[in-house]
Each structure stands twice: as C-alpha cells, then as structure tokens.
C-alpha cells in the first residue's frame, strides 16, 4: 500500500463539494469539501456527533443534503435514491449491523450480487440456460470473498446466530460481494477486541490491495486509523477542521485541540 504524496494526486474519484445538511434548525454538516482519491484508504474521524455518519448517509443516498454537490466519477449523485447509488458501485456497511438475520451467510453475500444479476422474473425463477451460468459466476465471486475474509466455516450458518465480530465480518463481505468501486465502512471495528480489530484492519488492507477498491472508513481507534489510512478527514460540529495525510493531521493543532484537548498530543 502506498501513502500518496500530497503533490502527486490523481484525479479524485469522489468530490464532496460544499455539502450542507440540516435537520430543521440543526445544522449537521456545514459546507464540507474534500476529495476521495481512487484506490486509497481514507478515514473520517471526529468526536461523537461531529457528523461523520451523516456524511456517509449523504454519500449513500439515505440523506439528501440541502446544499452542495457530491460527484462520483464526475456525476452529481445528490438526489439519486439509495438503490441507484448502490448500482453505481458504492457499497456500505452500517454502524449498527444491518444484516439479513434470517438468511445464511452465503445468502447474505449472494444478495450483494443482486445488482449484477440480469435475469428477470421468468428466466431467473428457474434454472435455465443463461440464468444458470450467471448463478455459477456469482457463486464463484462470493466464494472468493468468503476465502478472502476467512469465513468458510460459517458459510451455511444463519447470520442472526453469529457472534458480533463475525457479523461485522459478514457485513463487510456482503458489501464486498457487490464488487464496489467505493466502499464505505461505518465503524467496522467498533466493539471489537484487539485481535478482532487486527483481523479487520488486515482484511481492509487486503481488499484495498487485491481489488483496488477505494475505502472510506469512520473509525474511533486512532492507532488503526493512522496505521492504515492514506488520508484523514477530521470533522467537528459538522465542520471539516483538517484534511491530509495521517502525519499532517496528527500534528495539526486544531485537531489536537478538538480531539484530545489542549494538554494531550496524538501519539
């Protein structure tokens, strides 16, 4: 993995351009502007209530910001319904796990292939010709994801019966099964022990390397964030207070103030 130098950046994959979001009188996001570069890992950090998840929801279409634009590969996606944004190649995971609890792990991952299935009601309903070939291709892709995330042993288990850490991993797998170009992860390591966190960090790096997927993650664990991210955006009270490489952000006095208080420094 390469930490990109600020001077040699490629064209951005996503441009978040003066995005403003309010709920009634409450301003959740204030003119947020930064870019997301293809093939990188970018972190969004900030104290609780800073607007991190709101921003992710704006990108995935669950919220519609009142101001600004979010351009994905040049196209403004604000106003598109969430399922169409997913079809453009943007996948996400949720802070509170949102899995299909009454289905098996494999079925959950197969749902990630939904957008890539072309067969309609009639041919898709029965195993004929093209539908069957298509099914085999999708199964193969899902098996790759299962191998990558090391969840072979639980593939036939009902998701609702799995441990929290494994559910988080399955949710990552389901998003990955969509073969997205941009993967949004909302606190993928929240509530995990250090061993699980290490695994998760390794998977995120593997995904980034093997598939070249751009990854945007919200995370509270500073050690992990500084370790795996190419760039970091820092939000506080709905405003972007810093944006840059981990080294730049780490030494930014505004970040130190906002995040840890004046007397601390990020180590």
């Amino acid at each position, binding site marked *: 993995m390469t930490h990109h130098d600020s001077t040699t950046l490629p064209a951005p994959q996503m441009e978040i351009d003066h995005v403003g979001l309010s709920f009634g009188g409450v301003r959740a996001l204030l003119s947020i502007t930064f870019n997301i570069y293809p093939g990188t890992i970018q972190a969004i950090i900030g104290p609780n209530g800073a607007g991190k998840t709101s921003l992710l929801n704006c990108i995935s279409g669950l919220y519609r910001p009142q101001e600004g634009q979010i351009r994905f590969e040049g196209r403004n996606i604000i106003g598109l319904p969430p399922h169409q944004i997913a079809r453009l190649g943007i996948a996400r995971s949720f802070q509170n796990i949102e899995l299909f609890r009454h289905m098996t792990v494999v079925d959950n991952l197969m749902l990630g292939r939904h957008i890539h*299935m072309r067969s309609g009601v009639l041919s898709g309903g029965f195993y004929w010709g093209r539908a069957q070939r298509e099914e085999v291709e999708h199964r193969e892709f899902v098996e790759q994801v299962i191998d990558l995330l090391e969840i072979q042993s639980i593939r036939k288990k009902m998701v609702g019966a799995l441990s929290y850490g494994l559910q988080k991993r399955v949710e990552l797998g389901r998003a990955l099964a969509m073969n997205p170009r941009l993967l949004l992860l909302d606190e993928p390591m929240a509530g995990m022990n250090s061993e699980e966190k290490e695994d998760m960090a390794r998977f995120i790096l593997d995904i980034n390397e093997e598939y070249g997927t751009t990854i945007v993650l919200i995370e509270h664990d500073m050690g992990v964030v500084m370790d795996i991210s190419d760039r970091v955006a820092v939000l506080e009270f709905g405003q972007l207070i810093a944006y840059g490489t981990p080294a730049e952000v780490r030494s930014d006095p505004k970040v130190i103030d906002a995040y840890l208080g004046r007397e601390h420094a990020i180590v």
Partner: protein
Amino acid sequence: MDRFIQLALSGIANGAIFALVALGFVLIYKSSDVINFAQGELLLIGAYLTYAMVEQFGLWWPVGVIVAVVLAALVGVLIEQLVLRPLIGEPVISVIMVTIGLSSLLRAIVGAIWGTTPRPAPQFLPTDTVTILGANVSIDRIWAFVLAITLFVILTLFFRYSREGIAMRAVADDQQAALSMGISVKKVWAVAWAIAAITAAVGGILLMSIFGGVSGTIARVGLIVFPVVILGGLDSIPGAIIGGLIIGLLQSFAGGYLPPEWGLGEVVPFIVLLLILLVRPYGLFGQRIIERV
C-alpha cells in the same frame, strides 16, 4: 366417522383458501408494515372481474380467469402506487384508517358496477361428489385445495430462487440494508401488492365457484384473515398456511358438530383470535418484537 372425514376435508379446503388470502396479507405486512384491511375486497374484485369476463364478455372461462387475475394484479399495484405510496412515513394508525376507508371505497365501486344483488356465477370446478374413506365429498373442494397448494408451491419457489423473490425477503428482513444492496424497495412493495391481489383473486374465484354465485359475502372471508394471521403470526408465511388450515378445520367442526342454532361456525375463528391475543400475541410462528426504550 364419515361425518368427521367430510367435515375435515371441507375444513381443509376452506382453510387452504383462507391461507391463500392470508398469504397476501402477510406479504404486504412483511415488506411494508402495512396492515391491509382491504384484503377481503381484493377477493371481491377478483371474483367480480372473473364474472365480468366469463358471463358478461363471454370469454372461454380459462381465458377469462387469467385476464381477471392479471387485471386484479394491476388493481393491486395501482392501489399501492396511488393510495399507499403517499403515506410512506405516516403513523401506523393513519395507514390502517386509510386501508379501512379503501375497503369501503372498493366495495362501493363494486356495488356501483355490478349492483348488490347476488348473481349466479359459472361453476368452473366439477361439482360431482366422490367417496373418500366412506365420506361423500364434493370434488370442487378437492380442486380448491389442490389449486391453492399449487399456488403456494409456485410462490415458495419464487421467494426462494427468483431475483425478485429474494429481493422481497431482503426487504422484509432489513429495509436499509436492502437499499444499500441496490434493491428498489418501492418496486418490492408493488410486487407484494400484485401478489396479494393475485392470491386474493384466486381465493375469490374458488369461493365463487364453490358458492355457485357471486355477492358481497365473498368479502366477508377477508375478515377471517385476521384470526388466521393472528394465530399464525403476522409476519410468518408458514404461519399463514398453518393458521389457515387450523381456522378452516375449527370452523368446519364447530359448524358441523355444535347445534346449528348457536351459529358457532362463524364465531369460532374470532374466539380463537381473542384467546391468541391473550396468550400469545405474536402468534404461533410470529417474531417476538421487543421494543427497547
């Protein structure tokens, strides 16, 4: 013993029809949390459309039935688009009130077109009787059962293997996640209403053939859906099937064995409804929903 078998078979046949109608109700509830009080009127629409196609337009009955079922599905989709879609995000009680209003409206429309006097209807199903285990059973009941079960099997395969069916299960399980998988929740709702209208229409057509006539009483069967789904669990498809069969059997036995002047056949399903609500409000197979505050 003959009488027992006779009552059991006719109970199972009625139960299969109840289950079919309840299935549509459960589908709508599972995918969109809408409690549809107009399910009975969907039966009525299916029956009257078939009557119109076969008796009034003179179509050969298999063609008439297919046209009627397709039209019923369109009515279902139309109701979803025009009536329920604007209500997204409104309180549950408002949605319930709207579906109650919808049931009156649909009944009035049917009354305006076809009047309120019962009309004789074509009996598509053969009406002779056969002897099973010593009991005389009319063959149309058996046909009704077989057709209902066939439709169940088709729908089960649809939910299990088709792209749209799997999308429906996903929406029922977790709407937000389904959206993030690229599934259009609105399309799923439209499909749910179409299927509910189709199953109700088939139920209405079977009842019309068994009764040999079509009238507003067919919509009364829609009320039976409530004991069925409360017994089976509002959000359970197997529950709808088993609940339908149990209610069908209970109704048949209560009507057959208890003194007819008590009229208990009609009432028993609702006694079950009250008991279930007291003892096991989420039904036999329903999900226990715990709200954490």
